[in-house]
């Protein structure tokens, strides 16, 4: 399949505000597409439409050829789309391990009735439990979260919480990962690590990533292509360098200016 996610004519209004109008995106497998735009441009609204928190007013979202714009967020997660949130949305009263284990929920087939009927390590439920723990351990190792696995996430440093949220999203084994400002509020060093990990996810796990980020250097560095939106409308889409120099993008970020030739 050469198209993983296809968005056509996506629009979403809140009252009179056009949060998104006529957005088209085609995402190839294993691609990293960066989404940039000033605050309030509609980036997070786009994510909320893709993962089903919002229902678009018009337009089609196809994931692996299947229209998903009318499905609820739990169905969409089951199809293989995971996300992180701009403001960390972890279950603060739970431990790191529990938060990540929740990401496995979509893959768990033992419900409460079946689980109650089967006890012990050799049963189906017992084997399934161990398989899930193994996957979770792999992710914990990958992101270097061993030291905090049994800590309550509410008390962890901000950067670590961001990682736990990423780990939880990875536990779904998604084919499409939506990252909403994964580096926001991180130190330069943490940002560097995050860039490595995201690259790793693309290279080693073959995850396709849609990424919102304000840090221009990071987003230019990491993305295969970039989509710039402003006032809910796409204004540029293409290679990072081309988008960065696009006049509409410059205008959106810097305001309309008299064009001045750089001094020689």
């Amino acid at each position: 399949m050469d198209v993983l996610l296809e968005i056509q004519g996506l629009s979403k209004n809140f009252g009179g505000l056009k949060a998104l109008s006529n957005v088209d995106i085609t995402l190839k497998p294993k691609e990293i597409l960066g989404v940039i735009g000033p605050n309030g441009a509609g980036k997070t609204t786009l994510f909320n439409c893709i993962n089903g928190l919002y229902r678009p007013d018009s337009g089609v979202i196809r994931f692996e050829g299947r229209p998903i714009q009318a499905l609820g967020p739990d169905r969409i997660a089951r199809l293989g789309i995971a996300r992180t949130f701009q403001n960390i949305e972890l279950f603060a009263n739970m431990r790191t391990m529990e938060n990540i284990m929740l990401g496995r929920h979509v893959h768990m087939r033992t419900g409460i009735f079946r689980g109650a009927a089967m006890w012990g390590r050799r049963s189906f439920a017992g084997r399934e439990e161990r398989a899930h723990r193994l996957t979770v351990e792999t992710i914990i190792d990958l992101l270097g979260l061993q030291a905090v696995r049994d800590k309550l996430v509410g008390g962890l440093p901000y950067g670590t919480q961001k990682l736990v949220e990423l780990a939880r999203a990875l536990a779904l084994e998604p084919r499409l990962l939506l990252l909403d400002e994964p580096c926001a509020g991180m130190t330069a060093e943490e940002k560097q690590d995050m860039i490595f990990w995201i690259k790793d996810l693309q290279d080693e796990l073959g995850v396709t990533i849609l990424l919102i980020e304000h840090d221009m250097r990071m987003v230019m560095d990491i993305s295969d292509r970039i989509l710039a939106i402003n006032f809910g409308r796409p204004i540029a889409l293409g290679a990072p360098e081309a988008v960065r120099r696009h006049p509409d993008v410059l205008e959106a970020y810097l305001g309309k200016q008299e064009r001045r030739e750089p001094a020689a």
Partner: protein
Amino acid sequence: MGTFLENLVTGAALGSIYALISIGMTMVYGLLKILHVAHAGVYVFGALLGLLAFRLTGSILFAFPAAVLGCALMGYLLYRFMYRRVQDEKPLIPLIVGIGMFTAMGDAYRLAAGPYSISFEHGLAQTGIVLGTFHISFNQVLVIGSAAALLVLVWLMVNKTKTGLAWRASAQDREVAMGIGVNSNYMFGLNFMFGSALAGIAGVLVGLYYGAVNANMGEVWAYKVFVVMVLGGLGNVTGTVIAAYLLGLAETFIISSWGYFLPRDAIAFICMILVLILMPNGVMGKRKQV
């Protein structure tokens, strides 16, 4: 000393019943932020079904499964065909729907069972343990013991199972839980079934404890559950259980030492009002989580 111990046992038995009735409502509140007033109607349904099964089979052993299955089904239906349709409305709407349903249920029970108390005597009621002046009845052992076992079961399910994990996640943040694939509607349905089954057991236990059931026995409970919930900190399951036992003990000891100067329900509601004014987060005193 004998009086103190007997008060302790009586209070614990009352507290056990309060806990079993209130857990279901607290769980619903924790997950959906709905005040499920019709829960008291489920509790009466359990008592009546238990009595029916007892009359048909002659054994109290059949009363419990009948109440569990019947109430779980009723809880699920209440959710599926009533609350689910209004769960995203303002909280007032499900509250009013619940009150209406509770009133209708009460009338249906009175039509079916009549307005008078019906005897729920079983042979073991008179037996018990006697140690000098200290006396525990079989009923008290039954109530305290089965409540303890059920509370352990609830604790295990909430804290040690994957479904419990998903339940806690949904209670903390429904949207995020759905975003990672938790089917919230399934959780809600399960939640109603489970809480209703506990209320059904409570209904049978109350019937056995007092030797009678009554179609009106839910009237006070529809609102008295609020007392337990408020004392425990709304939506907090552990707090609710602690509050239930505290209330059962407080009622018993206050009446035993100061005489019957007020009906016990009045004492409970006064406690609730005082707690709301003085400790709005409940006796557990937990601040709102950020």
